[in-house]
């Protein structure tokens, strides 16, 4: 075993040294006129708003110029969910008792009240982040993370049964694939109009209308990513809670 550990440490150190060496040769951070700033980026900087329909350049790149990559990324998240569910299974609905949190302790009134007060605000903020990713920092992924966080807080405070009551499995399953589905449906929509997959300017519409449609399409994707992201995080956490409770079950029955 010892030589194995040694080999691992040695190979990782070699890798690290190599990386450090190469980083030393890279153009220093923030310097002007490096190759990466002269090739594709200028077009993104100058034309993003007009071409890609997003004031936020990052959003323009993510959703439009490189939308196909983002489609892949949401698929990665979806795959992660499928992986978790395939390994752990869904939450078992009638396993835990109300009034008992994930750690098996009774929850306090203060926490419950605060959470009940906070969750709508957090959700509201999440929707804002999703919808305004187009012209300010944020976007679907970030919004989704916030949605997920709000639901997780709620679950911590009120326990799994209450959460699954609010967002039941039958509701979550379709929403989990909504991000992938949003991308694909918008892509196919373009193809129905005879343009390439994931083209957001549809032909045959007037300039104004086309831009409005593009805005709607992009927003649909943003919201889709947000909702699906949030639900996927929630589902993953639910699966894991069930796993924890399952292990804690003997302790609970003793006390």
């Amino acid at each position, binding site marked *: 075993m010892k030589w194995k550990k040694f080999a691992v440490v040695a190979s990782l150190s070699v890798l690290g040294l190599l990386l450090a060496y190469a980083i030393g040769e890279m153009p220093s951070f923030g310097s002007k006129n490096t190759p990466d700033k002269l090739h594709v980026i200028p077009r993104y900087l100058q034309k993003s708003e007009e071409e890609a329909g997003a004031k936020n350049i990052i959003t323009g790149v993510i959703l439009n110029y490189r939308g196909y990559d983002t489609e892949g990324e949401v*698929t990665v998240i979806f795959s992660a969910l499928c*992986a978790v569910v395939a390994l752990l299974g869904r939450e078992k609905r009638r396993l835990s008792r109300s009034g008992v949190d994930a750690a098996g302790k009774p929850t306090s009134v203060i926490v419950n009240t605060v959470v009940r007060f906070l969750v709508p605000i957090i959700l509201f903020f999440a929707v804002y982040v999703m919808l305004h990713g187009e012209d300010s920092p944020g976007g679907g992924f970030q919004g989704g993370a916030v949605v997920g966080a709000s639901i997780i807080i709620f679950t911590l405070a009120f326990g799994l049964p209450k959460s699954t009551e609010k967002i039941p499995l039958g509701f979550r399953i379709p929403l989990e694939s909504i991000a992938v589905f949003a991308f694909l449906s918008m892509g196919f929509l373009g193809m129905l109009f005879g343009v390439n997959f994931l083209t957001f300017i549809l032909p045959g519409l007037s300039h104004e209308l086309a831009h409005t449609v593009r805005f709607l399409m992009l927003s649909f994707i943003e919201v889709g990513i947000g909702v699906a992201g949030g639900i996927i995080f929630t589902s993953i956490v639910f699966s894991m809670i069930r796993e924890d409770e399952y292990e804690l079950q003997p302790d609970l029955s003793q006390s």
Partner: protein
Amino acid sequence: MSVSSFPILLTAIPLSFAALCPIWGMWKKEACFPWSVAGVSATAFISWALVSKFSAVGTIGYKVGGWAPPWGIHIRIDFIGMLLAVVISSAGLLILIYSWRYIVHEVEEAKIPYYYTLYLLIFAAMLGFSITGDLFNLFVFMEIFSITSYALVAVSGEGKALRAAFKYLLMGAVSSITVLFSIAFLYSVIGSLNMLDISKRLPNTPYVVVVNTALALFTAAFAVKAAVFPVHMWLPDAHSIAPSPISAILSALVIKMGVLGIFRVVFTIYGHGFPSTSNLWSSLCGFVSWAAAFSIVIGSSMAIIQRELKVMIAYSSVAHIGYILLGICMLAPRGMTGGIFNIVAHAMGKACFFLVAGSLIYKHNMKRIRELRGIGRTMPVTAGAFAIASLSIVGLPPSAGFMAKWYLLWGCFQKGRYVFVAMVLLGSLLSAIYCFRVVYYMFFTGPRLHTQKVDEVPPSMYVPAALLSLGTLVLGIYSTPLISAINKFVGSLPVK
């Protein structure tokens, strides 16, 4: 939707089917299988339709979102991408059909919709990986098929499976992050993600060290995915413990993605113009071909000493990845032909092997080679498929594996690498030992003929195995169109 939009459908169709698969599963669990078969066969049809277009016009391009290449993502189906797309979609369909009856055996009923979803995802991701022309897109699809394959290895939920998957996850994650680093390196000094664009801009870059580092890291990272000799440790566990159809997918297709990654980096990106400014390229190829040669010998030797059938087959994959990479990285034209041809030959032969191993587990729960006595008599089609496929894996005529070996050896002579000739031949002798040992137990031992009735697995399980094994035979007897196409493609690569 005309033929011109087919390239994107290769990933879009299976992804849509994957996204909707859990919803079908919510309604009715049995509906997932026909649903996925519909998706995969539609994709297979599209890939074959693309073949006819490819043979007419050559490389097929598709601008996703209508953006011109350096700015948007460009799908570019060159020959090797086309070849892999066809192999993936056809073998994927057969393996999917096989897994219908099999998977009930190993996966809990509640998880079955997610099994099919993961299957469609890995299928889509491999197709996307094969046909993309964009480096970052390559990485994205690599992440999808990596994550799904970790999950699929562990899907049975047994402790052994979880351990194997975790080992796979660790090595795979290191490799993925290394690929990401390399992409960052390249982007920081080239400023582009499109592979052709990068390859055009590479020779003029002043940042040779960074570019070289990226090349080395890329190769090392993809070598992990391909499971070449020094970094093959994850493969025997993961491939032998996964449910058999998944082993088939992993061994026949997923490790080929690592090979394709190396190919993309070494030839598509760095192959044109760059070699003249750096000698790292050729020495790296030399290094990889030595690693591949050792893979052949060590993988085959390890396969011989295994007692369990699936572990043996898994080690055999290490050896065969060696054949493929040796051919590709030896930089001899005919060796390249052999290497690329072996991608197809090995995919069929190894998929058949794992399907047969799965049938044996399904029917009799036989895992050890010694237990296979008399299987040739009770399960003639399954055992026969194994015997025919083993011809190809060993590389005996007339089989696809033989043609691959023929061109590989020819390549060795073109480069005058007689050591590799010896290693390849030694490898095939060793593989004869491990394959024929199984065939021997199946056919020439065990109880007498008349006492036993034929007792086969369901047709949905033996037909895919039989088709794959017949495929190796047909491709061995008539490979002219494929090989001349490969030769034409090799002519466009920087190998002399």
